[in-house]
């Protein structure tokens, strides 16, 4: 067993030249994909709960289709198809953003569907009794409660999403893992690089999931 780390690898140079750029992209991708995914996921969930077959069916096919394919394949698909559809090449980063919004929408839609169904029927009837339209009822009565009930689950999915951003490696987008990989190759220290990447991912995800756990307790008590 000859295991020794070259600690001089960890210096400000590494952070400023390789890590910050990648971490920035990972975080940006997480935030954009979460917001976009929740928005389109809510639309998909409303389609599935609409009771109209022509809305329900395509949404169901989309959600189940996305959920049965590996994310890496989806990333590859979009990287191949999006340039064909819009007729000009887009970068790996832009392709990754579009992919993650489309992919996460399927997962967030399942969460939102459960959230909307967790709101008691009486709430919907109360809204209707007040003369609210479907839109008003959803916006003012149902969705706020659905979001609140599902907040911990939505955040847990966001943590998974943050971990999954490392998969943009497949198309060579420059995320945090890529930053460490490039640095590891440049300085011939892959071991130190991957260890550091693991530590940073762990710290971020562990801290977030700890916070979500506490949030969950808080929400559970008031209800």
């Amino acid at each position, binding site marked *: *067993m*000859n*295991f020794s780390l070259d600690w001089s690898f960890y210096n400000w140079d590494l952070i400023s030249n390789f890590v910050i750029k990648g971490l920035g992209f990972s975080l940006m991708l997480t935030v954009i994909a979460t917001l976009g995914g929740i928005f389109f996921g809510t639309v998909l969930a409303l389609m599935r709960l609409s009771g109209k077959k022509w809305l329900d069916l395509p949404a169901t096919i989309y959600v189940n*289709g996305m959920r*049965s*394919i*590996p*994310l*890496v*394949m989806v990333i*590859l*698909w979009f990287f*191949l*198809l999006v340039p064909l559809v819009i007729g000009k090449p887009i970068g790996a980063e832009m392709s990754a953003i579009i992919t993650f919004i489309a992919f996460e929408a399927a*997962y967030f839609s*399942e969460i939102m569907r*459960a959230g909307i169904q967790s709101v008691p029927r009486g709430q919907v009837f109360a809204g209707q009794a007040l003369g609210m339209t479907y839109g008003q009822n959803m916006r003012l009565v149902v969705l706020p409660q659905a979001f609140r009930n599902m907040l911990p689950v939505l955040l847990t999915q966001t943590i998974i999403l943050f*971990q*999954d951003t*490392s*998969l943009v*490696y*497949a198309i060579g987008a420059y995320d945090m*893992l890529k930053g460490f*990989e490039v640095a590891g190759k440049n300085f011939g220290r*892959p*071991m130190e690089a*991957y*260890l550091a*990447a*693991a530590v940073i*991912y*762990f710290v971020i*995800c*562990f801290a977030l*999931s700890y916070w979500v756990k506490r949030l969950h307790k808080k929400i559970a008590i008031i209800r």
Partner: protein
Amino acid sequence: MNWDWQMFCEDTLDRTVREGCFGKDGDITYLDWMLSAWGWTVSVSLLALVLALVVGVVIGTLRTLENRPWTVRFGNAWVEFFRNIPLLVQIFIWYHVVPSIFPAMKSVSGFVLVVLALGFFTSARIAEQVRSGIQALPRGQRYAGMAMGFTTWQTYRYVLLPNAFRIIIPPLTSETMNIFKNSSVAFAVSVTELTMFAMQAQEETGRGIEVYLAVTGLYIVSAFTINRIMAFIEKRVRVPGLVAPGAAGGH
């Protein structure tokens, strides 16, 4: 756009179309290659599943032991450790870091490393399911075992685990399907499973859409098969009258 499905019948070296679509005498066509890639995906997934089930059940059970705080803490640490690092990073760790700590691992192939990485990664998730399955059982079950004079081992073996397994079959089904999906990450260390095949064949032939469609189809077939097998198992082991508490869903 025009389709060119014939590319699957082409030889991978000289790109000539082979009769019958399968190569002979050691030559392989893209169809041969894809089927063998599917085989790799299935073997990585199944081996990792076995490892994940064994480790996951042990760790999950350790986390529910009473009056053993350090064992529980070890189990919790295990789960947090493997759950909070992305699978791809874990695979790189197995590939680049573990062999320098344990020189014996140097001669181990990428295939084995991927099975280990995927297996341990999934073991954390299965441990979490097993723990919640055991804790979902009424406390009286454990006490009943104790009242019968069972040792802790016997209580788990004959009372708690058989019940807990039936409760967690639905989440285990989705974990099994997840293993198949997650095995795609093996492309990163050059195991020629389906995703690796898709990337390379796309590059060589330029027929990305056909290749991706075929590979996506195989993934969907695999996922559907798993789903049916698990549904069959669930039906076979069902105990009449045992209503699984809180067994809804999983994701």
